[in-house]
């Protein structure tokens, strides 16, 4: 069972995502901000991390750098979740080394499938 860490400050989005992903067999971990997200990631070593770029303490781009410095997470897929202007997003996520991005508003019917594409086959739900 793949473990997904969602770092997201909007509780409504968190709850929706949790329901959608749990229904597909994912174990869902959550954190509402960057510092707690780093802590959960270090302790739980999820199979994939979804980062909201806009977090209340530190933004997702900076958090990505922190996560990549954790040796056990250097190959973990880290996906940006963002409503930022679509034109700027591809260059931004590529420059920072995200493994991909999902744009907001999230289409929850396709969300689990989107995540599955980033997981190694052995870690899929």
């Amino acid at each position, binding site marked *: 069972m793949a473990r997904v860490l969602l770092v997201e*400050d*909007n509780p*409504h989005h968190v709850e929706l995502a949790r329901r959608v992903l749990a229904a597909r067999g994912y174990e869902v971990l959550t954190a509402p*901000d960057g510092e707690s997200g780093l802590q959960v990631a270090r302790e739980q070593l999820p199979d994939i991390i979804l980062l909201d770029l*806009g*977090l*209340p*303490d*530190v*933004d997702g*781009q*900076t958090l*990505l*750098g922190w996560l990549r410095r954790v040796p056990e997470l250097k190959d973990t897929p880290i996906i940006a979740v963002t*409503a*930022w*202007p679509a034109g*700027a997003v591809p*260059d*931004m996520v590529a*420059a*920072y*080394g995200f493994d991909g991005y999902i744009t907001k508003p999230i289409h929850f019917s396709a969300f689990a499938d989107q995540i599955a594409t980033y997981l190694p086959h052995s870690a899929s739900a």
Partner: protein
Amino acid sequence: MNPCQLVPASHFTLEQLVEAYNHTRVDYMVPMPMNAARLAEYIHVYDVDMEQSVVAVDGERVLGLAMLGVRPDRAWVTRLGVLPNRRRRGVGEALLLYLLAASDRLGISLVTLDVIKGNLPAHTLFVKWGFHETREMIILRRPPGPPQHTAAGRCRWLSRAEALAVAQTRPRPLTWINDTASLAHADCVLGLTVNLPCGSRGWLVFQKHRYYLTRLTMATVEGDPTAVGRALFYYLYQAYPDIDTNVENVAVTNPHLAAFLDAGFVEAFRRVEMYGQPLHGCGGGPWPGGTVSPSGKARR
């Protein structure tokens, strides 16, 4: 349109304001949420006057808020937001008019603001009340990494006092965020100068924030801005290869923009700066505890 009650933001705790602010921005294309520590820093660095800033309420429920930065010569409308399900009812307009009236009472002649490019409802509101565009600005990000190019020349690092002194030499007008007054309120401000063999020279001032480098501002004193910029970034990232960088409000006409891009910066989003004037004799607030209709006229 429903009335709302306008209350000075000083009547609320930072935690209440942060909760309200984050709710108003939840569907923004660039939400920029905050926690209380971040808001406290924002208020301090940008001279936000909490007595002049305002929260719109309907009974116990917060509908929106807006803040006013105040400096001797001008004011800055910032963090204006309304709950998604309470928009298009005049609340945003009431908040704006409150701030414009406050600016008038303070004797300020120029009110500025920055609006995210593409935020049409906000832009329309500001134009309605006399604001006009002055410049387009880019928010730039650079991921951690060593310098992407080498550079020749001599570098000298500046102390905080030296850095603030050179930053003060920048031509006006500066954006609120990048003004020297904002830099002066920030912790860990440093700088460096470069002198290139070709005779070009310039300086860079920045803040080493807890999480990233930010508040970068640079100038070419003599010669080629692109060469000066490249050299400055070389020395900066030779010293700080492992830290993220976030630079706000770089004008699209900035002569060092090519150097930013060469150094590995990417565009995050854009803002448009707008200038306007206080509202004279509008009859609206602030009346703490009073009610303001969307037209700005007070009702008791």
